[in-house]
């Protein structure tokens, strides 16, 4: 028993010592005079956000780690479009106060350490990139002739600032969604005639629903594009109907969030079968007893509109 306790204490001490050594090594080997702000950024992962200028200038994420402690760092990440950013090896340059960025499949870049908080890349075609530390992580900006072309901020994903920002973004996204839906509903649906789709082309949500439910009416408007093919209508992922131009169908759907998607026809042949992977999605909310009318028409892709109709008692 005593021996076990002694072993446990020894293990705990050795773990503490090891982690302290690792921290000390990071701090000692990342000399700010050599690495500038990267001395602070190494060992951390950041989430980016556009601040101004070019859209999608900020990467979704960037991670800076040691490849060889004290000698080479490596920066990886994911772009806003989901693709990987080219892997960059970062090492001290030929001259003091210089960092070399060895970029995979791209020309290399050189940057000058201004101080422990700031790094400026050499100009490329007149554009100059600056990296500077911030409270939550770091900022990046591109200038041309002194004018800011684009700027982004990166927050440490382990920081409280990041957690708070994420929570705020989630809340804002929910509010935006409600506002967008209200605006869409206020605009209503086009008053164009539509025939009820025949029963053999309506596949789901015709049965009685157990629990709270509402009625969803889905109408395909008349449009020149893709008019020769049926459109598949999916409700909550379930293939619910095949609709022609100017056709409508009614569904009994569980209340709550409802996803209506349209895509090419799974029963289609030839070109009518093409493009089933690209379901165009419309999200709405159906309250208990409510009837919501979702209207779509193909016009450079599916364009959705919706309206709330008089509530019905389920």
């Amino acid at each position, binding site marked *: 028993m005593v021996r076990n306790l002694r072993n446990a204490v020894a293990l705990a001490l050795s773990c503490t010592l090891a982690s302290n050594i690792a921290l000390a090594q990071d701090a000692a080997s990342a000399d700010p005079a050599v690495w500038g702000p990267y001395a602070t950024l190494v060992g951390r992962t950041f989430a980016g956000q556009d601040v101004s200028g070019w859209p999608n200038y900020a990467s979704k994420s960037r991670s800076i780690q040691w490849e060889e402690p004290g000698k080479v760092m490596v920066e990886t990440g994911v772009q806003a479009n989901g693709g990987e950013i080219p892997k960059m090896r970062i090492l001290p340059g030929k001259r003091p106060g210089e960092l070399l960025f060895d970029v995979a499949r791209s020309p290399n870049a050189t940057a000058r350490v201004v101080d422990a908080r700031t790094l400026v890349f050499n100009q490329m075609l007149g554009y100059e990139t600056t990296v500077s530390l911030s409270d939550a992580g770091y900022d990046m900006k591109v200038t041309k002739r002194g004018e800011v072309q684009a700027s982004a901020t990166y927050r440490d994903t382990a920081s409280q600032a990041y957690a708070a920002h994420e929570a705020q973004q989630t809340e804002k996204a929910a509010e935006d969604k409600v506002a967008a839906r209200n605006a869409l509903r206020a605009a209503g649906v086009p008053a164009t005639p539509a025939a009820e789709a025949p029963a053999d082309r309506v*596949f*789901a949500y*015709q*049965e*009685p*629903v*157990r*629990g*709270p*439910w509402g009625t969803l009416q889905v109408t395909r408007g008349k449009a020149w594009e893709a008019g020769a093919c049926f459109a598949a209508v*999916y409700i*909550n*992922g*379930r*293939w619910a109907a095949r609709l022609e131009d100017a056709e409508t169908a009614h569904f009994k*759907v*569980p*209340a*709550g969030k409802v996803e209506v998607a349209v895509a*090419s026809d*799974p*029963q*289609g*042949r*030839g*070109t009518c*079968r*093409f*493009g*089933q*992977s690209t379901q165009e999605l419309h999200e709405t909310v159906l309250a208990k007893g409510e009837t919501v009318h979702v209207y779509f028409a193909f016009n450079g892709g599916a364009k959705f509109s919706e309206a709330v109709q008089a509530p019905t008692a389920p």
Partner: protein
Amino acid sequence: MSLHPAMKTGRALLFGALLACAAPAFAGEDPSALPSGLRPYYDTLLAEGEWGAVLNLQRLGLEAIDQGHLDIAERAFDAALERVELIYANSDSAKKARSLWSAEGSKDFKGEPYERAMTYYYRGLLFMARGDYENARASFRSAEYQDTISSNETYAGDFGMMSLLSGWSSTCAGDAGMATDFYQRAATQQPEGLKPPVAGLTTLVLVESGTSPVKTATGSYGEAMQLKRGDNPFVSAHNGAQELPVLGDIGWQASTLGGRQVDAILDGKASFRKGTETVAGIGIQGATVAVSLNDGGGAAGALAVVGIAAVLVSSASKPKADIRYWDNLPDRVYGTFLKGGAKNALSIAEQTADGERYPIDAPVIDQTAGACRLVLYRAREPGALRVQAVSNLSAGERKSLQKRNETRDVAFRNEMERRFMSNDEALAGGE
């Protein structure tokens, strides 16, 4: 066959025993006539032949349970399982048949692992209702096995409910040692380990909630298939004040294999199609650009012809993914073990996230057999099931398929007539 050897001989004996002392739910049927409520599903079974046999038998079997015709459910599930076992039994001959079946690209429905597992689950419950706990256990063990195999690969077993039910069958059969082994296994499996019943409990209550997982076609030509969880507006099930634990999460089982999330299931010949697809893609994009630039139509016309022709070649060469699915399955199975004795009243209800309760008035199975009682609640309205499962075959494709299968479907229909319309117990039992 992966079922217990006693199953074969048991079927014939059971039928005799059934005639002598059948429980109410199994009796009172004129075996030469199908109940009118099941007739539309039976007609679909005959019309679709072997191509849809397993799916139509699964749907018919479960609808028969919902309508209270347990003997017909038994026949349907037996016929479905015979077809499943030809390909997916735990035997060398089935393994060989499976590899041939995959290579030939057979279109006959056999179901995804979760669907095959659930077929054994219902068969196991029907054995339980009759008090045949050894065959019930064999069925639940087969259910777990089915959840581990796809066409070409095997995965770790993670369907904890099947292990729990194997254990319960052993308890009811008086085999405490085997029961302990299964309970230990269930404690380490999804969802989050299942607790064994405490000693002295003799009633198993199962409550099925929500709607079945969904299959959709994906990929440019619908050649791949994706699985998604079905709708379920309820977040819990209760017996009076007691919240029931989730024993089986069918939505999760459908979308995972060996505990890993499945993105899409693709059965195609990628090397040929990739080349064709690239040409097609360029042609169509080019045509779109040319049309939008309004260049007079000449170049656009030529490009569109090239693009559409290539798409047609590419699409014709891609087999459609089979998106038929067993649509009267539940999303989740809740359950608990209770004390037996008198037919104590249960107060079962499902509850929404808002706290609103929806009671389920009566069970579809309530049978006491031997040492144990089984009570199964399902919330589907009998007779509301769509007569035909949804398929992505066009009318023309369906017609040519039926023509191709004409000869074997004559034999199939004869077999079904004997199974469902005959008094012959041996045929009815599928021997």
